[in-house]
């Protein structure tokens, strides 16, 4: 049997028909020759042949693939769906929703976790850095900071494991030269960046090692494709033009290809600038030579034949020499000891590097499981529907079995029907997933931290969707099909089987109980996440959140000499405070809950304290403006200048944990600095209440505040002045005035704005994601389970009509009937809730790290969820029960 035969079956069949006709003709002739008359001759010939049609059919069948049967089943299934639009819509929509949600979340997970970089041989790339959670001392800028520049140069000179190696990090460059900032995402890259990744320019050229020579005066930069389209409209003559970044001119040497977004998943870049240009943009910092400034990440391509383990061993071997040569001179003895003990290691970087994984990996997996459970519940509903339909089609199936269809054949046909529903559901779901995943990405992006994902479906997502479709078919299609063909044909042929025992709907009841259990798990999860969000959102950070505008002034190009910076800050502040609509203005180094941090070790009476203390530098009026109560002593004022003694204000935690006293006013402490310099001493002049420092999740710790006016050496890592402006007016009204004032003070300053409450809001992004999605899914699950319960109860009531009729005829009243049905429902519900309670205890343990202020096994949450679901479900069961009790006994009995 071959393909050609299959396609030309009709033709073959015609030939056969002719052949058989010819055969009959010959036989007839012979019979006539033997003496029969023509009619008898023909009859005899045909008798001898047997059933001609059967012969033709047999041959036709031999020419047929199994696909033919499949195609016929498909057509039949499609017709059935067309004739039952209600069922078809409900089934395909629930599947579409379930499959779509799962695919969307998986797509995001895939983009964050599994997708490889669009560069040459990504599996050869490894990230070279210190192991996770290695404590380091110094200053840090950037998003994924692992190494210092001297360390990087040492690695580049001494490594042998990599055929190419480069360093990079992210930076925000300002495109404007004065007035309001126009920030753009930049990448610091070393010269080998593009070569090692195997990326060539789409226009012009990419950076080479020649572009990254120490002390470069006029380096070239490479634009990204989206930036080029946005800023230059895709103008082909952009190569050679100048672009000003942070006020400095750079030459555009090329444009990167459209698919290249850097090495960070979920992020993109606008300009790539060689590392040697860093001193041009940050002249006061000297990041190139500072041994304690951590700002680079290093990625290398393994040499052919080298494994990552071998590279690790090699890196560990060259580490001592590297760290010896780059020991920062300002380190204390302790810090130096740990520094010299550092060992570099390597991690696979084929899927890019990103901090998103730490943040979102667990939440995404949990959301995927949640979505999976919802899909299961939806499938259970569809399975119940199909069981109901199969019962209705009992006779049809019995007839088929009776006239010779094998059981396998009928099961196959029923399965194809399910497959059709699953395929339509999956198709719709895939479409839905596109919008859903876009929504998800938009949800987890904030203005401060834009995320970009290439959400085009890759093979993994396709395979996932198809696997889901097949799995759901098996779950809701196969079992009912097997069950429908199990009964003997005779029993099924008898109409309206009476007195069905409970065992008959064992499967359906189990399904519903399972649905209830799973719904409980999801509702408990949703409640836990919602409570977590509420706990965090209502948490008092210790300071005022509303009506605080944060204005950032980038003063690098304002050419304010460091000695004048303090006075400059005061002038600016006073000018802004005088603006109409602004009640108070205060400057601060670290804006609370902004994610930035500055910490030190404190020395009390010669003893170095183990607990880290966090620092901040503020102007007078800061505490008053943010509503932080002063519990003892005084705020900073004019007395605190560089001429007088160094003072500090501390929070209650500091007084308790570090100074271990209730009377800290007047006490002194020192800040630990490196060898060669004496530790400065500070006197405590005031105590304030505890506040959150950089993040709402971290518990409060010791904080020490220094006065702005006593700054002697503005730290190089803070390039800007932040002024908090308290006002009751909406920020939009204020920004124009602030910009105008800034322009008057110094036109080269760059200003950017955000609000404090927005900052806090953004920091709760993950919790909001979990609460929103799990809440939505939990509600959906409860709805589906309730519908399922209602359906099964209605069905059972319908089946038991005779029984109810008899009972009523024998004297049962309405209440008895209702009680009987409800007892049934309660048992079902109870079993489901009990199972669900156990499951939710286990399941919520996996989410423990994502919770705040509530424990995984919280009994109150479990109780609320169980009671809520139970009440709703009981109501759903009451309706069919009440209907049953209104049956006329005579009508019920008459149904035979």
């Amino acid at each position, binding site marked *: *049997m*071959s393909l050609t*035969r299959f396609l030309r079956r009709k033709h073959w069949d015609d*030939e*056969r028909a*002719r*052949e*058989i006709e*010819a*055969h009959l*003709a*010959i*036989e007839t*002739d012979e019979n006539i020759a033997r003496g029969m008359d023509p009619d008898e001759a023909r009859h005899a010939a045909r008798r*001898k*042949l*047997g*059933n*001609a049609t*059967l*012969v033709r059919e*047999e*041959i036709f069948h*031999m020419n047929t693939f199994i696909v033919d049967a499949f195609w016929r089943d498909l057509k039949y299934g499609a017709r059935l769906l067309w004739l039952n639009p209600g069922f078809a819509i409900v089934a395909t929509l629930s599947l579409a929703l379930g499959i779509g949600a799962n695919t969307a979340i998986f797509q995001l997970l895939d983009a964050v976790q599994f997708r490889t970089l669009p560069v040459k041989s990504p599996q050869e790339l490894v990230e070279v850095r210190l192991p996770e959670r290695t404590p380091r001392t110094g200053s840090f800028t950037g998003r994924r900071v692992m190494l210092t520049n001297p360390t990087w140069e040492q690695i580049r000179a001494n490594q042998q494991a990599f055929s190419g190696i480069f360093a990079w990090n992210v930076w925000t460059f300002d495109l404007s030269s004065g007035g309001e900032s126009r920030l753009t995402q930049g990448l610091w890259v070393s010269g080998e960046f593009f070569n090692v990744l195997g990326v060539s320019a789409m226009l012009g050229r990419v950076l080479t090692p020649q572009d990254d020579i120490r002390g470069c005066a006029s380096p070239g930069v490479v634009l990204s494709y989206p930036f080029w389209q946005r800023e230059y409209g895709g103008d082909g003559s952009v190569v050679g033009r100048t672009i000003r970044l942070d006020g400095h001119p750079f030459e555009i040497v090329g444009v990167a290809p459209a698919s290249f977004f850097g090495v960070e998943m979920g992020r993109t870049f606008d300009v790539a600038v060689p590392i040697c240009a860093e001193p041009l943009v940050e002249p006061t910092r000297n990041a190139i030579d500072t041994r304690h400034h951590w700002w680079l990440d290093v990625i290398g391509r393994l040499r052919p034949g080298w494994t990552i383990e071998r590279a690790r061993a090699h890196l560990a071997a060259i580490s001592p020499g590297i760290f010896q040569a780059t020991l920062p001179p300002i380190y204390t003895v302790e810090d130096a000891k740990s520094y010299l003990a550092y060992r570099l290691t390597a991690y696979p970087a084929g899927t890019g590097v990103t901090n998103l994984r730490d943040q979102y990996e667990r939440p995404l997996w949990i959301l995927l499981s949640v979505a999976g459970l919802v899909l299961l519940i939806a499938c259970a509903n569809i399975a119940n529907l199909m069981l109901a339909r199969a019962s209705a089609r009992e006779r049809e199936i019995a007839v088929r079995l009776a006239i010779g269809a094998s059981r396998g054949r009928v099961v196959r046909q029923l399965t194809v029907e399910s497959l059709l529903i699953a395929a339509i559901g999956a198709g719709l779901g895939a479409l839905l997933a596109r919008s859903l995943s876009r929504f998800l990405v938009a949800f987890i992006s904030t203005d401060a931290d834009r995320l970009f994902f290439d959400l085009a479906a890759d093979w993994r997502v396709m395979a996932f969707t198809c696997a889901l479709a097949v799995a759901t078919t098996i779950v809701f299609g196969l079992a009912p099909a097997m069950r429908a063909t199990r009964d003997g044909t005779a029993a099924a042929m008898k109409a309206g089987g009476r007195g069905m025992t409970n065992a008959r709907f064992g499967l359906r009841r189990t399904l519903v109980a399972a649905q209830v259990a799973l719904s409980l798990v999801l509702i408990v999860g949703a409640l836990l996440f919602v409570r977590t969000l509420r706990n965090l959102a209502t948490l008092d950070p210790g300071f005022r959140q509303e009506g605080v505008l944060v204005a950032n002034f980038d003063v690098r190009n304002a050419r304010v000499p460091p000695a004048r910076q303090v006075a400059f800050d005061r002038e600016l502040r006073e000018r802004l405070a005088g603006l109409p609509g602004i009640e108070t203005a205060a400057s601060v180094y670290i804006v609370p809950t902004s994610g930035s941090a500055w910490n030190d070790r404190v020395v009390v009476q010669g003893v170095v304290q183990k607990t880290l203390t966090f620092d901040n530098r503020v102007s007078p009026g800061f505490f008053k403006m943010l509503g932080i109560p002063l519990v003892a002593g005084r705020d900073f004022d004019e007395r605190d200048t560089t001429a007088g003694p160094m003072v500090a204000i501390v929070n209650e935690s500091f007084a308790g944990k570090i100074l271990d006293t209730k009377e800290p006013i007047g006490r002194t402490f020192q800040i630990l600095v490196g060898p060669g310099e004496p530790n400065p001493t500070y006197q405590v002049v005031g105590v304030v209440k505890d506040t959150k420092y950089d993040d709402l999740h971290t518990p409060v710790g010791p904080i020490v505040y220094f006065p702005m006016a006593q700054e002697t050496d503005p730290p190089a890592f803070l390039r800007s002045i932040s002024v908090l402006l308290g006002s009751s007016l909406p920020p939009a009204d204020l920004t124009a005035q602030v910009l105008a004032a800034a322009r008057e003070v110094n036109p080269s300053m760059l200003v950017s704005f955000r609000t404090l409450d927005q900052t806090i809001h953004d920091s709760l992004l993950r919790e909001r994601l979990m609460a929103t999605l799990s809440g939505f899914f939990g509600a959906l699950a409860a709805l589906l389970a309730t519908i399922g319960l209602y359906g099964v109860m209605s069905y059972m009531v319908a089946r038991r009509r005779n029984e109810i009729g008899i009972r009523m005829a024998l004297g049962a009243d309405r209440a008895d009937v209702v009680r009987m049905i409800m007892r049934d429902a309660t048992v079902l519900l109870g079993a489901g809730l009990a199972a669900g309670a156990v499951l939710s205890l286990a399941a919520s343990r996996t989410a423990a790290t994502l919770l705040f202020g509530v424990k995984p096994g919280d009994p109150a949450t479990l109780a609320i969820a169980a009671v809520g679901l139970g009440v709703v479900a009981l109501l759903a069961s009451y309706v069919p029960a009440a209907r049953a009790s209104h049956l006329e006994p005579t009508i019920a009995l008459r149904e035979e």
Partner: protein
Amino acid sequence: MSKRGNQPIHGELLQGTLDLLVLKTLALGPAHGHTIAHAIEHRSDEVLQVEHGSLYPALHRLEDRRWIASFWGTSENNRRARYYRLTPMGRKQLVHQTSRWEAIVRAINSILRPATD
């Protein structure tokens, strides 16, 4: 096919044997379906009656396996008929099947009539 007056023999043996007889008949020269059926009946002295209805599927099967090939020609009484002929592969199969058949017959005989020592 069935022996006249006897129960038809069921099983694999039946189908394979019909194939063998058809191949052997065609070894003597091309023929069409009707002729093949009559040839088998005739040469077995009417012991083997071929069910014409099962002949054509058998011919189709053999043609599928390319042991025989077909062509349209004119029959004895000037009618168009489909003729079959043996292919080289078919000829090889004939030898193979014949020896297999003989082996089976020998085996059965050795049970029915054990060799006396």
